[in-house]
């Protein structure tokens, strides 16, 4: 009889559930603290997940492999880097939501280095800039954002060189 293998994501969820059960047994207060944090995060993340899936839907609807290859593919040139930087700043979201989207774009011909650029610019988000400026000052926020963009290009170049 052939035994069905449990998928890795289910194994992961079972391990996390076991950790939570152990925490509940050791400290009920900590369990509820973590659960409260989980619900708060979920509330924040759900609209972003919805937005990203909405974007993914339109990407699949309007962007065909030829368009991706032209703007973010092997022949996209220096403009591809600019599109990747702008895209990564414009599309904000947690990595576990962005990664399937980037994986999808790569399947359509996106360059490896531009995928790395996408994930390295997560801190540069105009929506969050006022919060950063509030705590650290506007000069700091602009300077950090500028350096992140520069280093994301460097990061993308190295990743592309060794992963292509």
């Amino acid at each position: 009889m052939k035994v069905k293998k449990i998928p890795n994501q289910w194994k992961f969820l079972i391990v996390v559930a076991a950790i939570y059960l152990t925490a509940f047994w050791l400290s009920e207060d900590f369990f509820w603290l973590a659960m409260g944090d989980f619900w708060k995060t979920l509330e924040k993340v759900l609209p972003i997940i919805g937005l990203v899936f909405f974007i993914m839907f339109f990407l699949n609807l309007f962007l065909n492999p030829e368009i991706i290859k032209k703007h973010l593919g092997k022949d996209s040139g220096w403009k591809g880097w600019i599109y990747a930087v702008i895209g990564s700043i414009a599309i904000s979201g947690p990595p576990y939501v962005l990664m399937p989207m980037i994986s999808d774009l790569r399947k359509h011909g996106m360059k490896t280095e531009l995928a790395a650029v996408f994930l390295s610019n997560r801190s540069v988000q105009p929506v969050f800039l006022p919060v950063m400026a509030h705590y650290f000052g506007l000069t700091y926020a602009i300077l950090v954002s500028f350096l992140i963009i520069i280093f994301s290009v460097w990061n993308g170049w190295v990743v592309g060189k060794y992963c292509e």
Partner: protein
Amino acid sequence: MIAGILLLISFLNPIFQRYYPKIFTGNYFWDPILGALAGSVAFGIPVTSYIAGGELLQKGVSLLAVTAFILAWATVGLAMLPIEIKFLGRRFAILRNGLNFINSIVIAILVTIILNFL
């Protein structure tokens, strides 16, 4: 998978947040490294790191450490590594995270130096 990752982050964050003020002592050599390490473990929405970093800064933690912390928080993720490997490949995930870890430290040092001149 998303639910599992969120549960893990919610579990790890309260544990590590308790130790942040003890970890950062103001040392110019170790602070950015420790900041990047702490940020790599605590992974989440960037705005949360700004608030946590801002609070740490107000408590006297150096800007070096806080900058490395908030940058690593958003761009390096130990908890996210399995999902990144799954979607983008092992070599890509390890190299990208490793480089972003180093970048967090370098940017933190550069920002502090430049701000001192401004």
